[in-house]
């Protein structure tokens, strides 16, 4: 029984990682850059939920406000910070992304102070089935994530814009020759990734109500790790990698001997997997074109 609870916990943590990892991996696939500020967008979403809860008090409205704000934030970050660097060296882009990350964290600290805020999204209670006790927030997280991942997969596969995203991620030049506006596709990708980050912020606050300006830092790094484990650039890879990280984390936390080293164990998983599959579980081994 306890194992099933642990597993469900792992799946809910993992699906949160997966939702964040999707943002990293889609931006990487399409703009070929690592958006290190992605984790901090989660934090901004968290503060939007906090503001909505303290003013209006409705968690669903809070989530919607966070999604909307993060989408606009993501689009603005891309336009102001990254777009001028199109074609610049990857190192310049990376440094800029780190700069944006600090900017977001510092701005949040200036506005909201450095003491953590308590953000109780709602009292969800538990579902009891026989001996099984499952907190409802886990089921909400899992359910929402599954719907999001399904919707995203269908969007990419079956819509004109989704297919354009695949085309851009594979060959920007050839995509332009199809009449695809690559800049517009990059903007849409940032919008989707940032909207997902807001959902992740909501899931995280449901699980643990403490909100500070570093809310997104560790989950951001773990989700990035998950994206690499799954194969950076691959959408199913981000899902698989995220779930794997979450399950490893949940199991490790229940074993007293290794619980304190849980973070290290998760990164160890990365190293081991990359040893055997250098481009990740579902990553493409790039064939050289002749």
């Amino acid at each position, binding site marked *: 029984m306890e194992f099933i609870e642990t597993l469900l916990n792992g799946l809910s943590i993992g699906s949160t990682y997966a939702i964040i990892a999707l943002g990293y991996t889609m931006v990487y696939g399409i703009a070929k850059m690592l958006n290190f500020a992605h984790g901090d967008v989660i934090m901004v979403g968290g503060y939007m939920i906090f503001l909505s809860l303290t003013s209006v008090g409705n968690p669903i409205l809070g989530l919607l406000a966070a999604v909307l704000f993060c989408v606009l934030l993501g689009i603005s970050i891309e336009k102001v910070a990254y777009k001028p660097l199109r074609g610049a060296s990857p190192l310049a882009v990376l440094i800029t992304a780190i700069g944006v990350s600090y900017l977001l964290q510092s701005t949040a600290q200036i506005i909201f102070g450095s003491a953590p805020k308590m953000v109780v999204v709602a009292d969800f209670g538990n579902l009891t089935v026989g001996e099984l006790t499952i907190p409802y927030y886990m089921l909400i997280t899992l359910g929402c994530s599954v719907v999001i991942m399904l919707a995203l997969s269908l969007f990419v596969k079956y819509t004109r814009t989704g*297919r354009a995203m*695949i*085309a851009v991620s*594979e060959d920007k*030049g050839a995509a*332009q*020759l*199809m009449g695809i506006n690559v800049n517009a596709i990059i903007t849409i990708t940032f919008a989707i990734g940032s909207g997902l980050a807001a959902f992740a912020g909501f899931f995280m606050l449901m699980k643990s109500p403490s909100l500070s300006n570093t809310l997104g830092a560790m989950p951001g790094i773990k989700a990035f790790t998950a994206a690499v484990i799954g194969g950076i650039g691959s959408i199913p890879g981000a899902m698989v990698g995220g779930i794997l990280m979450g399950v490893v984390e949940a199991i490790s936390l229940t074993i007293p001997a290794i619980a304190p080293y849980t973070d290290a164990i998760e990164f160890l998983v990365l190293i081991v997997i990359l040893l055997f599959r250098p481009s990740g579980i579902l990553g493409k081994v790039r064939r050289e074109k002749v």
Partner: protein
Amino acid sequence: MALLEVKDLEVYYGVIRALKGISFEVEKGEIVTLIGANGAGKTTTMQSVIGLIPARHGKVIFDGRDITKTPCHKIVHLGMSQVPEGRRVFQELTVYENLMMGAYSQKDNNSFKEDIDRIYERFPRLAERRNQIAGTLSGGEQQMLAMGRALMSHPKLLMLDEPSMGLSPILVDQVFEIIKDINRDGTTILLVEQNAGKSLAISDRAYVLETGDIVLSGTGAELAASDQVKKAYLGG
């Protein structure tokens, strides 16, 4: 007025001047070929005309409109299409999905079904393999797919960059036949080739490009008969 008019086009890669101010034109209905050795600047010309590489100086006028500074995706919407060097089909998409990408610029896609049937008729091989992932096609099939994909947008001007590269002699003949066919059906063609013999034979006019400069021009027949071309591009 010419369908495509290129005037004094200069293109740089960093400090390297890859095109030194070339001028040429393509009249509606023609097949025009640029021939030239490896590194002459043929691909640079093609990519610059369609807006993938910016021009430093000069003008590109298409269908009466100055497109020198127009981004590639907009030029495609104006009715120019290109089969790029190396084909560059989308390896992870199926044949059908690649053809859909080709129709991306067609906003109200009422004729999609007819268009794709027309492509399948012209390239029966693609019809057989419509659900196959493009990366698993042979080189010849990928070339057919790249051509089919480029035709899905109903281009006024179709540009082909070395479509015969890496193909077996039978396939090469087939590709040139198809190009003639496409032209006969009303599409203007700008062709780039190292295979000078075959391309001059189907061309109305041609230009010879040497290290970023046009050094010779004339009708296909004139160039095929010229000593200079014979010596440099037709093996004596």
